[in-house]
Each structure stands twice: as structure tokens, then as C-alpha cells.
């Protein structure tokens, strides 16, 4: 089973208890599947970045990838 680095921010980071962690995921799992596995409903809509580049939730993750879950932003 592949290992990835998971990065989380804001409320998602608080729920995980840390902003960066190494996790094991099922072979062939997508970004959106990993989000659904790790966070219970109700889930906020998120954006996905793999290896620091914005991508779709349908992106399949590979060994060594970094997945960032991006909750609704609030800068300004």
C-alpha cells in the first residue's frame, strides 16, 4: 500500500491535530477518496493539490505524493 504525505490547513488541520503527516492509503486511491476516508461528514468542500499543484479530486495518488486538502479560503 502506498504512503503519502498529507497536508491540512485551518479546521482540517485542527481535526487531524497536525498540519503534515505520513499516511498509508489503498492502492489506486484518489485524492477525494482519501479526504472522504479521513474526515467524517459533514465535510466542507475542499480543493486538492498534489505535489503543491492544484488538481482534481479524481487524481490517483502514488507512493511518495504529497496531498494537500484545501478548505474554503479566507484571506484578505
Amino acid at each position, binding site marked *: 500500500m502506498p504512503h503519502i504525505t498529507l497536508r491540512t490547513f485551518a479546521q482540517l488541520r485542527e481535526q487531524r491535530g497536525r498540519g503534515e503527516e505520513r499516511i498509508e492509503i489503498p492502492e489506486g486511491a484518489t485524492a477525494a477518496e482519501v479526504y472522504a476516508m479521513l474526515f467524517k461528514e459533514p465535510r466542507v468542500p475542499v480543493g486538492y*493539490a498534489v505535489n503543491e499543484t492544484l488538481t482534481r479530486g479524481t487524481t490517483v495518488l502514488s507512493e511518495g505524493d504529497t496531498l494537500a486538502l*484545501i478548505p474554503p*479560503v479566507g484571506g484578505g
Partner: protein
Amino acid sequence: MLELTAEVLDLRAIRARVEDPGFGAVLVFEGVVRNHFGGRPVTGLEYEAYPELAQPVVQAICAEIKERWPGARVAVAHRTGALDIGETSMVIAVGTPHRGACYEASRYAIEALKERLPVWKKEVYADGEAWKPNSPV
């Protein structure tokens, strides 16, 4: 193009990044920490950023501005960490040859950054706290 810092923002230094002898207009926009949200008193804010993605997002927005308003220069700075009421959380400096484009580009920049910049804001109240997105979820 983007500066993320826990230090007080230096307006003059950010403005200096868009100066050009050919410019007739420079606008410096400041986002400031307000003392209320939806009628609820706010005692402070906390900002968190995703720097590795924030840089390319700002680069993309700057490229859009340069395409729409040729010759424009843009500099953006955003605070991270805890801020007090009245502190400047964000600065957008825009310089252009003429004033019309400057107002338009500045407005475009703030709206695009509010929507796309990977920065999060936690509002701290007298009796709790909450992460507040710019658009309703």
C-alpha cells in the same frame, strides 16, 4: 511577488516594488482587521497560509492583471499568525501608467485573491473562535 510574513507589513517597501518612472498612478490597498463580523464582536484574528501554493496563485493573478492592463505592476503581501484589531492583514500595491487602469487592476486583484489565495482566517471572539471563509460554504 507575494510576501507572507508574521511581521508587521512595511507599506513603503511593498509600494517600492511597483514604482516605475513611467507610472502616473500607484494604489496601495490595505485589508484591515475589523472588530466585528455579522454583529458579533471580534477580539482578534489568526491567519494561516499554504505558502507553496500561495506563490503560484499570486503569480497567476499577476499574469492575468498584466494581460488585461498592460504595463501594470503588482505586489502582494499577507500577514500570518495572530493579528489585533486595526492591524493591516494584507497589502496590494498596483502601479500603472494611468489612474483608470490602476483602480480597475487593484479591484481585480483583491477580488481574485479573496477567492483564490490559500490563506485561512480564524476569528477569535470573547467566547470562542471560528474559521471564516470569504464565500459562504
